[in-house]
């Protein structure tokens, strides 16, 4: 076979292959190239579990040095200098994942609730860490006129807050309150610098926040996965190799002396735990009362466990109630403040105190305004101050 023939045959084969490939790829080529927006919509598919995005964020969290730790712990007032800039740059990937998590419409942390009080909650610490960085960046953006981006940071942080509490575990709800407060404190001093468009977007995102944890839900959770789970284990106390007293101490977080005081047998310990059931059962009714009466009633219920050596199995719902009420009120105040910034103080009448149903109070200040509620926390009314941000 001469070279020209072979070459010609090879060329024919290549041409055929190209034609075949072209035909096969034609449907793909016919579609327009994905735009950045289309690509983002694929990335932010709402049917994904947000926890998977958040855990990627947690994995990307920077490990700060001492100077950065100090900066983070004082993020509300720390100078926004090169150190802050460097820290925020190192946190960019984590914060990107925070934003992606917000786009998801569900969040399942995959907690092992069957572990009862020994259940691990590593996401709570990580969520706080991530939230602080998001709030620091929001503050930086607000002071540099990047208000649209700052609004995203604030809203993303609030979404994360809701999701830390959404399992109705009391500790998660406390962390939710903590993170919500961070986000509100980050934006409130700068709210007057946010453009109307960005305020409207913030208002929209505030109305679309996912549900967080509820105190009613946490009472149910603590009763079923905490108290009742322990009582059930005591009926069959052979599932672990530890000594009984040590097993209870590990699970309940009680010193062995408390177990001993409770009788140190499965029967006596179960009896002490069962004595807490009526108290648990009475809490939901107390929650329906106005805040002062609810607080008083819950305190009364709490005190019924004072002589029970295993009262640790009954969380301090009274104090949690105050924080929970303050958390809900604070977010209402932020919604009201955004509405006021958008359309004036007359919009305040659209909002009421979530626990008393009474009107909120508006007080103008030289650099902004103050909104007061009737709800109290640690004996002080819950308020929100708008303005007074250092430029």
């Amino acid at each position: 076979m001469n070279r020209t023939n072979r070459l010609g045959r090879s060329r024919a084969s290549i041409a055929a292959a190209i034609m075949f490939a072209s035909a096969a790829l034609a449907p793909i080529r016919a579609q327009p190239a994905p735009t950045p927006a289309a690509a983002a919509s694929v990335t932010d598919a709402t049917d994904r579990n947000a926890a998977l995005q958040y855990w990627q964020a947690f994995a990307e969290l920077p490990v700060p040095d001492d100077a950065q730790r100090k900066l983070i712990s004082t993020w509300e007032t720390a100078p926004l200098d090169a150190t802050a800039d460097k820290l925020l740059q190192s946190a960019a990937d984590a914060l990107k994942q925070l934003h992606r998590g917000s786009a998801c419409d569900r969040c399942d942390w995959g907690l092992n609730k069957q572990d009862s009080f020994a259940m691990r909650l590593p996401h709570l610490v990580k969520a706080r860490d991530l939230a602080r960085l998001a709030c620091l960046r929001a503050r930086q953006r607000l002071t540099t006129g990047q208000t649209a981006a700052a609004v995203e940071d604030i809203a993303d942080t609030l979404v994360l807050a809701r999701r830390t509490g959404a399992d109705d575990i009391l500790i998660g709800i406390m962390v939710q309150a903590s993170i919500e407060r961070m986000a509100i404190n980050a934006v409130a001093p700068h709210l007057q610098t946010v453009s109307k468009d960005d305020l409207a977007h913030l208002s929209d995102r505030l109305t679309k926040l996912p549900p967080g944890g509820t105190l009613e839900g946490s009472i149910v959770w603590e009763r079923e996965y905490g108290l009742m789970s322990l009582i059930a284990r005591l009926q069959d106390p052979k599932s672990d190799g530890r000594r009984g007293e040590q097993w209870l101490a590990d699970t309940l977080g009680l010193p062995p002396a408390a177990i001993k005081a409770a009788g140190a047998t499965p029967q006596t310990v179960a009896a002490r735990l069962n004595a807490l059931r009526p108290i648990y059962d009475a809490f939901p009714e107390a929650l329906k009362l106005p805040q002062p009466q609810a607080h008083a009633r819950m305190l009364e219920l709490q005190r019924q466990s004072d002589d029970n050596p295993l009262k640790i199995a009954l969380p301090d719902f009274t104090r949690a109630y105050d924080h929970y009420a303050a958390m809900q009120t604070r977010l209402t105040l932020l919604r009201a403040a955004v509405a006021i910034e958008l359309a004036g103080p007359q919009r305040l009448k659209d909002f009421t105190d979530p626990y008393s149903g009474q009107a909120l109070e508006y007080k103008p200040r030289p650099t902004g305004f103050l909104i007061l509620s009737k709800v109290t926390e640690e004996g002080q009314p819950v308020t929100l101050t708008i303005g007074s941000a250092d430029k």
Partner: protein
Amino acid sequence: MTNDERDPVEVELEALRPIAPSSELYRRIGDALAPASARPWRTTLAIAAITAAAACVALVTWLARPRDNPTVSNEFATTTTVPAPLAVAQSATALRDYRQALAESPARLEALLDAQSYRPMGPPDPAPPAASLARINQNWIQ
């Protein structure tokens, strides 16, 4: 080049011949394919290693055995022994730790959470010492 001339590349390819495997390669392959009985020294070595490992495990288990006061009655005496307690019970990130902290005060809970902040992901550290918990942030939320 005419059709009858041979392609120099083909001529060069035809001249290529594989190199014969070395005797060392044959020896190694034969060694690897030989039955275990033909390598008694390896079996002996494996048995010795397993025995040594088992001895180490037994020694560590004996040294780490619980030394509870035997006079304390144990009404929970088990009929089935599961080897190790839950690792989660040793962690300061378990619900019980947070509950205990909250039972003292919300500030204590915050301090516990702060003590665990910004640590690389991995196995949890043991519960922070009391000194670190004493660094309580009086401002509960935040």
